[in-house]
């Protein structure tokens, strides 16, 4: 059990110019917390995790585990366990040997290793497979062995580097829930890296969004979804992605085709003070709806309808100014519009819109 802290930690890969893979990361993780690091590829999330593991140097700043500075401590001395994307199981060892290897190296008595391995195997439903080699296991079973290897050590921090990305979709959803439940039960601080925002939203107590080595926002999934700090977070979290368009401003609000979305006075004032004539306007597909004939709305030409059973997503284009912009709207799947049809779309609730600075991408609305 331990809290984890990145104190202005950077990893700079040499080159010209040098690549700041992780740039001045400042992040505190509480004891027992499940923190998800999420971002697109190349965002530095895996590097940040490997810095915590001690597999990657920390070029600037420090890393603390349990209040102790471990910046220059080798992985061995950090009391951590890691689950790799490839699982990294030792191919010549049986499941039981894989799980007990760390304890064996530590010189734990054989009987004690056996008991701990048996206990973890029971927890993960691996008892039947203890004598098998990894190559005789399915992908899901291997994943559980990798988890088991981490659990047996009883470390103060679990590190997981995209542990589900080699599983098929159904198993991934199942294992996702199992890992979250296991973490709750063990109450061990966990840092989990993924590129999948659904995993991030469903598993993390808090989610840290990274881009180009920079921390964009770290907050609870709900806060990230409802109040993204910038346009990148807004576009990255949520599926399908938020509609983000640059739109002109009028005295009343944001001007979309045939629809003026009124904006709060405070926002309009602050925008006017900066002398902006445009803003980045964001609205999630689920915050849009098909408008009735007597309502105001923007005219959308339907280009594609994705039916998912419960919902349907309508992809279509709207003319804003001279350009044609693509919007996604979530609609009831029982009455989807047809391809080529022109429909009227309106914002369901004006409090569900997000405004960002057109250049910096920073959140504008209160």
């Amino acid at each position, binding site marked *: 059990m331990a809290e984890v802290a990145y104190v202005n930690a950077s990893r700079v890969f040499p080159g010209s110019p040098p690549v700041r893979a992780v740039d001045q990361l400042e992040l505190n993780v509480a004891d027992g917390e499940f923190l998800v690091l999420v971002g697109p590829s190349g965002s530095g999330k895996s590097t940040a995790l490997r810095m915590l*593991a*001690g597999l990657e140097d920390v070029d600037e700043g420090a890393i603390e585990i349990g209040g102790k500075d471990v910046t220059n401590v080798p*992985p*061995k001395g950090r009391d951590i366990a890691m689950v790799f994307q490839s699982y*990294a199981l030792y191919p010549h060892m049986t499941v039981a040997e894989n799980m007990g290897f760390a304890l064996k190296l530590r010189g734990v008595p054989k009987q004690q290793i056996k008991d701990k391995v048996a206990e973890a195997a029971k927890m993960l439903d691996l008892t039947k497979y203890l004598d098998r080699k990894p190559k005789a296991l399915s992908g899901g079973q291997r994943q559980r062995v990798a988890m088991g290897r981490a659990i047996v050590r009883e470390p103060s921090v679990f590190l997981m580097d995209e542990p589900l990305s080699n599983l098929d979709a159904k198993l991934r959803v199942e294992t996702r829930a199992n890992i979250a439940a296991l973490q709750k039960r063990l109450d061990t601080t966990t840092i989990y890296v993924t590129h999948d925002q659904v995993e991030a939203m469903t598993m993390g107590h808090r989610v840290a969004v990274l881009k180009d080595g920079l921390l964009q926002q770290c907050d609870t999934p709900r806060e990230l979804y409802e109040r993204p700090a910038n346009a990148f977070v807004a576009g990255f979290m949520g599926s399908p992605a938020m509609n983000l368009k640059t739109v002109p401003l009028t005295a009343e609000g944001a001007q979309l085709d045939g629809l003026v979305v009124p904006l709060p006075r405070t926002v309009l004032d602050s925008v006017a003070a900066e002398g902006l004539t445009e803003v980045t306007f964001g609205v999630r597909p689920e915050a849009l709806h098909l408008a009735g004939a007597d309502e105001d709305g923007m005219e959308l030409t339907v280009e594609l309808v994705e039916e998912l059973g419960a919902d349907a997503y309508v992809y279509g284009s709207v003319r804003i100014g001279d350009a044609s912009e693509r919007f996604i709207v979530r609609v009831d799947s029982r009455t989807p519009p047809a391809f080529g049809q022109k429909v009227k779309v309106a914002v369901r609730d004006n409090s569900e819109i997000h405004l960002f600075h057109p250049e910096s991408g920073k959140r504008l609305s209160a």
Partner: protein
Amino acid sequence: MRRFLDRYWYAYAMVLPVVVVTAVLVLIPLVQGIYFTFTDINEANIANPLLDRVAGYVSVGFRNYANVLSGDSSYGSFWATLLRTVIWTFCCVFLHVTIGLGLALLLNRPMRARALYRVLLILPWAVPAFISSFAWKYMFNSQFGIINQTLRALGLPEPVWLGQSNLALVAVIIVNVWVGVPFNMIALLGGLQSIPGDLYEAAEIDGATPWQRFRHVTLPGLRSVTSTVVLLGVIWTFNMFAVIYLVTGMNPYTRTLITYAFERFFAGASRDYAVASTYGALILSVLLVFALFYRGVLRRQGETL
């Protein structure tokens, strides 16, 4: 059966040339050689069309085997020679694999001019064995060789390397190690590169020291390569003729089963084809027994070859 042929005739047509070549070059000589071991064939009684002489050799049953296996010195002191062959093979293969592994480990780490080192280290293998052997023979020369010149300059004793002593065996082992290390190095380097890097990282996080990582990740990861390299090395070294013959000639202190078979076949008062063939058959059986035993050991360790 008919449908089977209709369907797969082209596969058989494709392998036919190889089957024919193997039969002509391997199987027929093998069968003939084994047949000779039961006769008293030599230069005096073999069929010779030039002298208009018909074959005069007769069957002698197992007499050749009895003579050879008696260990009699007039039949090449079989058991002593076998022991020397085993020592020679063990020393060579052991040094091949350990030195090859050491160099492969050095080459597997990132460093400058790695490609250059790799080429330089493969070079001894690219040089034909007979050139290496002659080069070494000159270097071992007791008066003019560079080795003894160096020893002389250092004020150390200058042994007669290639004389009638066990030092000659040491010398041929050195030459054969020189010739054989590059192959082992390359094979083991390939093996090292196929070990995934995250296994080392996982072991590091599990708390393994560098030696424990070598012991528990590198060595097991190389097992399929080492088992192949050792089997090939044993067979090649056991049958290595060129290096021994070219460096020391027919020296009784470097006599192995294969060089004695050659000696018996081509040299001596009467070219004794029967005894030479008997040695050939015995070499084959020793290697067959070894290969079967080796496979058994590997299978027990859960590997296949």
